[in-house]
């Protein structure tokens, strides 16, 4: 997705652009498929940074302008409302920060002023200040609030939707995620992520861009710090003036002919399983009108790779694509859908035999759903179809080491590498999510490919 956004920018300004996709389908982590006659989305729970039509500020407006799209091209429908649920305490929020403010006042009356002080710090945070970006988010929160439970509850959705590091989140990432989720908010196109992807591809090809599927890059030939050619899996070589890589930081370095195997400890560790349950009715009819529920079953939020088992179901995310405010023309989605995401361990999933893998998929579907229905109405009697993707599925589609959904913890904000005409875009450059991916592609194209 970052590649397509970059490609549109460059093709619009008359550069010859070729996008190479290893997989047979586009989108990387944000993709889609069809199975048993039904459409499924991968990756997308929600598009963040939602702003209404006509808004001139914010990442969404900026992306639309930069890619010359109309607001209608993404057809975003806003969420109904979401919850953060811990034992004994819940906080509701939607796309208007007033609800969050009121909920915090009710559940944490002693923290009201502290919350206002946090908002001020977030407004004051300067995206371009690299030193402020790197400080510990937990440290800033501990200096701001006196109730540790509220800190954990605020971190839960923000880490779930974009924290590549375990335990803590850097302050810069915290601010970006806080703005995108609590100050702007969630939305979804009725037709899912495929609508956005298809519009990106159509525009890119319309501008003369070349998109080649099933063309994996095997090697980047580097001579004296300069990339001279790339070599595809089939041995074919392609030359170009510059390369933007969305393969990930260490994944890209590994392809360079002048580097030895990069240190794998730099790779991200956080990956997930996600189950999709298709219901014979709308979730709302069984009392579930939440767009997204972020749950954690103790007062301390756990954001680590599982140490004991294939998954850790103590925390998770429940998402129902039905629960968006779609336009009257679109109506409701025909199938009721509940998606549940929980943390998983790549190595343990990767080490399973084919037979074990099949069994474990069933076992962890049951376990993760059983954990989730403590926080959402039990839907298990209405399930008519299921699917589950695992860390190895994610690795296959994204090519990220460990199937790390949010990439490596250390981001390369300026996108540069040791090779003078090779730049990073996508997850490892620094922005995550659908809006983040497009923003990354646009910024890296602007910064490195349009200024000469």
């Amino acid at each position: 997705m970052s590649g397509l956004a970059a490609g549109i920018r460059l093709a619009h300004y008359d550069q010859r652009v070729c996008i190479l996709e290893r997989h047979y389908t586009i989108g990387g982590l944000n993709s889609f498929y069809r199975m048993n006659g039904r459409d499924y989305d991968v990756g997308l729970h929600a598009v963040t940074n939602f702003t209404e039509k006509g808004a001139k500020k914010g990442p969404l407006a900026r992306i639309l302008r930069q890619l010359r799209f109309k607001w209608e091209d993404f057809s975003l429908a806003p969420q109904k409302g979401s919850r953060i649920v811990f034992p004994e305490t819940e906080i509701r929020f939607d796309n208007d920060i007033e609800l969050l403010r009121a909920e915090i006042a009710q559940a944490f009356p002693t923290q009201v002023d502290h919350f206002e002080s946090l908002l001020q710090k977030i407004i004051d945070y300067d995206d371009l200040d690299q030193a402020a970006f790197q400080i510990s988010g937990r440290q800033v929160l501990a200096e701001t609030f006196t109730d540790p439970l509220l800190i954990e509850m605020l971190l839960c959705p923000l880490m779930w939707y974009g924290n590549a590091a375990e335990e803590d989140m850097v302050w810069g990432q915290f601010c970006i995620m806080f703005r995108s989720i609590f100050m702007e908010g969630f939305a979804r196109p009725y037709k899912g992520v495929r609508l956005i992807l298809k519009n990106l591809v159509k525009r890119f090809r319309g501008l003369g861009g070349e998109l080649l599927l099933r063309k994996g890059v095997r090697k980047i030939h580097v001579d004296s710090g300069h990339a001279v050619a790339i070599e595809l899996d089939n041995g074919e070589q392609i030359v170009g003036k510059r390369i933007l890589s969305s393969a990930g930081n260490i994944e890209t370095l590994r392809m360079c002919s002048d580097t030895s195997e990069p240190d794998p400890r730099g790779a991200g560790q956080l990956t997930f399983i996600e189950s999709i349950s298709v219901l014979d009715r709308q979730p709302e009819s069984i009392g579930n009108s939440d767009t997204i529920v972020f749950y954690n079953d103790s007062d301390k939020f756990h954001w680590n790779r599982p140490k004991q088992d294939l998954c850790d179901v103590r925390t998770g995310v429940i998402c129902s694509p039905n629960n968006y405010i779609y336009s009257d023309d679109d109506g409701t989605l025909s199938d009721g859908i509940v998606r549940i995401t929980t943390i998983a361990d790549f190595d343990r999933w990767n080490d399973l035999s084919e037979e074990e893998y099949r069994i474990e998929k069933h076992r962890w579907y049951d376990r993760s759903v059983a954990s989730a229905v403590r926080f959402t109405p039990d839907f298990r009697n209405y399930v008519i179809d299921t699917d589950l993707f695992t860390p190895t599925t994610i690795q296959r589609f994204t090519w990220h080491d460990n199937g790390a959904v949010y990439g490596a913890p250390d981001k390369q904000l300026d996108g540069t590498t040791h090779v003078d005409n090779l730049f990073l875009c996508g997850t490892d450059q620094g922005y995550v999510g659908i809006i983040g991916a497009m923003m990354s592609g646009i910024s890296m194209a602007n910064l490195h490919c349009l200024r000469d």
Partner: protein
Amino acid sequence: MAPEEIRSAIIDILGDIAPDEDLSTLDDAVAFRDQLELDSMDFLDIVMELRKRYRVQVPEEDYTALNSMASTVEYLTPKMVDVVAT
């Protein structure tokens, strides 16, 4: 191109970059930033569109000349004197 033609070329470009802005009330003497929601990415686009449409190069050190409509037209007039209006 005459200054008036350059002005209308810039209005065209702004209309593409920021389609939701009302450009009919633009005050030529006031900075773009103070009347339109333009960020640094949009300014890059003005430069890029000038290059794409009229083959006019604006080096990075001259970006400040694109502050307002009046300063932009003044800056571009000698550079675009040989450009034929379409």
